[in-house]
C-alpha cells in the first residue's frame, strides 16, 4: 500500500465544500454568541448582522440536499444579470493540464496539496526561526519536490534569497529573527 492510496480515499470521502461551510458556520456561530457579551451596544450590531447572514446562509447550503425542490433551486441556481456569451467558446481544450488530485511529478502527494502544505510549513518555520533562514530551504525543497533541473533550482534559491535580503534591507523588517529560536538574529 502506498501513501497515495489512503490519501486518495480520504479525498474521495471528503467533500471540501462542507469544510468551507463548516468553517463559516462555526466562526459565524461563535461570533454571534460572543458578541452578546460586548459591553457597548454599537460594537455588537455589525458582528451580529454579518454573522447572522453567514450562519443562516451556511445552514441553508449544508441542508441543501434535504430542502424542498423550490427552495433548493432558489439556493443553488445562479442569478446572473450579466452573463458572458458562451456560444462562441472555443472547441479546443486549453493546453494547461490541471488535476488537483494528482501529482504531475509522481510524488505521493497531489501538487496542490503539496503547495498548500509547504506554504504553511514555510510560514510556520519562518515564525519559529526567522523567514530569512527558511526562505532558501523552502525554495530548495519546492524545486527538489517538483524535480526541477539543478540550474533552475539554483536560480529560484538565489532569487528567493535576493527577495528576503531586499525586504530586510529596504523595508527594514526583522526577518532574521525567530519568535521561538534564534531570537537574537544577525
Amino acid at each position, binding site marked *: 500500500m502506498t501513501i497515495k492510496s489512503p490519501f486518495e480515499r480520504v479525498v474521495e470521502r471528503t467533500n471540501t*465544500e462542507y469544510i*468551507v461551510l463548516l*468553517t463559516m458556520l462555526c466562526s*459565524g456561530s*461563535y*461570533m454571534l454568541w*460572543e458578541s452578546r457579551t*460586548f459591553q*457597548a451596544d*454599537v460594537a455588537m450590531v*455589525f*458582528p451580529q448582522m*454579518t454573522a447572522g*447572514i453567514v450562519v443562516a*446562509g451556511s445552514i*441553508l*447550503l449544508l441542508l441543501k440536499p434535504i430542502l424542498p425542490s423550490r427552495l433548493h433551486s*432558489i*439556493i*443553488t*441556481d*445562479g*442569478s*446572473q*444579470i*450579466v*452573463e*458572458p456569451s*458562451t456560444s*462562441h467558446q*472555443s472547441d*479546443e481544450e*486549453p*493546453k*494547461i*493540464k*490541471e*488535476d*488537483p488530485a*494528482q501529482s504531475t511529478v509522481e510524488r505521493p502527494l497531489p*501538487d*496542490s496539496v503539496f*503547495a*498548500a502544505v509547504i*506554504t*504553511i510549513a514555510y510560514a510556520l518555520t*519562518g515564525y519559529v526561526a526567522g*523567514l530569512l533562514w527558511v*526562505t532558501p530551504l523552502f525554495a530548495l525543497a*519546492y*524545486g527538489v519536490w517538483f524535480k*526541477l533541473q539543478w540550474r*533552475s533550482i539554483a*536560480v*529560484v534559491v538565489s*532569487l*528567493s534569497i535576493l*527577495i528576503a535580503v531586499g525586504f530586510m534591507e529596504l*523595508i527594514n*523588517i526583522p526577518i532574521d529573527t525567530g519568535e521561538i529560536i534564534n531570537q537574537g538574529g544577525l
Partner: protein
Amino acid sequence: MVVESIFEAIATLFSWPTFGWVLIGVPIGVIVGALPGVGSSLGMAIILPLTLPLQPTNALILLVSVYSGSMYGGSVSAILVNVPGTGGSAATTLDGYPMSQNGQAMQALAIAATGSAIAGFVSVATLFVLSPVIIEVVLAFGSPEYFLMAVLGIAMITVVVRGSLVKGLISGAFGLMITTIGIAPNAPELRFTFGSLSAFDGVDFIAALIGVFAIAEIIKLAAQEGGITDTGIEMDGNVFTGIKTVLSNPLAAIKYGYIGMFIGAIPGAGATVANFFAYGEAVRSSKDEASFGGGNPMGVLATEASNNGTIGGSLIPTLSFGIPGSGATAVLLGALLMHGINPGPELFADELATTYSFLLALLIGNVLILIGGVFLVTKLGIITQIDTHLIIPIVVVLSVIGGYALDTNWFDVGTLVILGILGYFMIQHDYSVIALLLGVILGEIAEENLITSLIISQGSFDIFITRPISATLVALTLFILLGPFIVPKIKGYIR
C-alpha cells in the same frame, strides 16, 4: 480647482522618479499578464507590499501601470499558445490563436496592442471628462448612502459572478464578519481577539488580498503541468498590417472600448464578461459571421479593445464609492487605503491631483503599450515558455515576506495563509472570492457608516429609507437580489 489639479498632476507624473514607475510598471504588467495563471490581480497583490516605502502617488502610479500592462499582456499567451493569461483575454483565443496558426501571430499581437492602447486611452480620457460629474454625485453621499453602497456592491457582485446567490451573499458577509476582529471602530471594545495582542488591529485587508489572489492562485497553479509550451513559437506575420487593420477601423476600437468601459463599471462584471460581450457584438454586427473563429482580425480587435476599456469603467465605482469593479481594482483600492487615501470625496477634493496623476499615468501607459507591443512584439513569445514551477516559489516568498512586512505582525501572515487556503476551496466550489474580498475591504468603512447613521437617527433604521438616495439604493439592492427570481414570475403571470 479641476484645472489646477490637472496641471499639478502633469507636473507630478513627469517628475523623476514618478515617471520611472510608469516605465517599470507597464512591462511588469505585460509580463504578469502574459503568464497564464498569474494575471493582473496576483501580480498587483504581490507588488503591493513592495510599495510600502514609496510615496502614495508613486505607489498608485506603479500599480495602475501594472494593471494597464497586464490587460495587454493577457493577449500574448492567448494569441500565441491558445491559453489566456488573464480571464479578460479568454475570448481573444477564439480568433487570435487561429491567426497565429495561419502565420499572422505578429499581426494579431499588433492588433491587440493598438486596439488596447486606443480603447484604454479613450476610456480613461472619458473618465477624465466625467470626473466633474462624478465629484458632484460623490459629494451628495452621506453615511447612510456609503453603508448602502457597500451593501449594493456586494449584492451586485453576487449576482454578476457565476454561482448561487446564497453562496455569493455568505462570501461577502463572511468577509464583512471577519473585519469585526480587533478593536471596534466606534467603541473601546475588543472583539474576538482571544486575548492576543497581535489580533488587536484585526484582519489586514492587504493580507487578505495577498492570501486570496496569490496563495489561493499558486495552490491552483501548482496542479498545472510545467510550462505552457516547451516548443518554440513561430512569430510570423507583419506588425504594420496589424496596426493598419486597427487604424482603418478606429470607430470599432472606440465602440468596443466603450462596451468594456460600461461593463467594467458594473462591480464584479470585469474584463472577462466585457471580452465575451464585445466578441458577441463583433460577430453580430459583422457581414462575414462565418469567418469568426477562424482568424478574423476584428475578433481580436473587439476583445482586446474591450478588456482595456474596462480599466476606465472599473475605476468609476472604485474611486467614487470604494466598490471595486474587478479583482485588480480591489488591489488598487487596497493600495489607496494602505497609503492612507480614502475613496470617495477625499479623492475628488484634497487628493484630486493624485487621482488625476494616476489617470494620466494610465493614458501614458497606453502609449507605452502601443510602443512596446509593436516594437518588442517578436520577443513576447519567450514569456509564455517560463515554467510555472519557477514562478510559484517566488510568489510564495514575496507573499509571505510581503505579508509580514505590512506591519511586522505574524497575525497578518496567518491571515494570508488561512484565507489563501480557504480561498482555494472557495474557488473550487464557485464561491465568490471577489465578494469575500470586497467584504474584507469594505468591512470597517461599512461598520463605521452604519453606526454613524444609527447614531444620527438615534438607533432607527428608518434613516436608510427616508432619504431619497438611500431609498433608491435600498430599492436597487432589493431589485438586484430578488429581481432574477421575481421578474420571470411576473412575466409568466402577464403572459
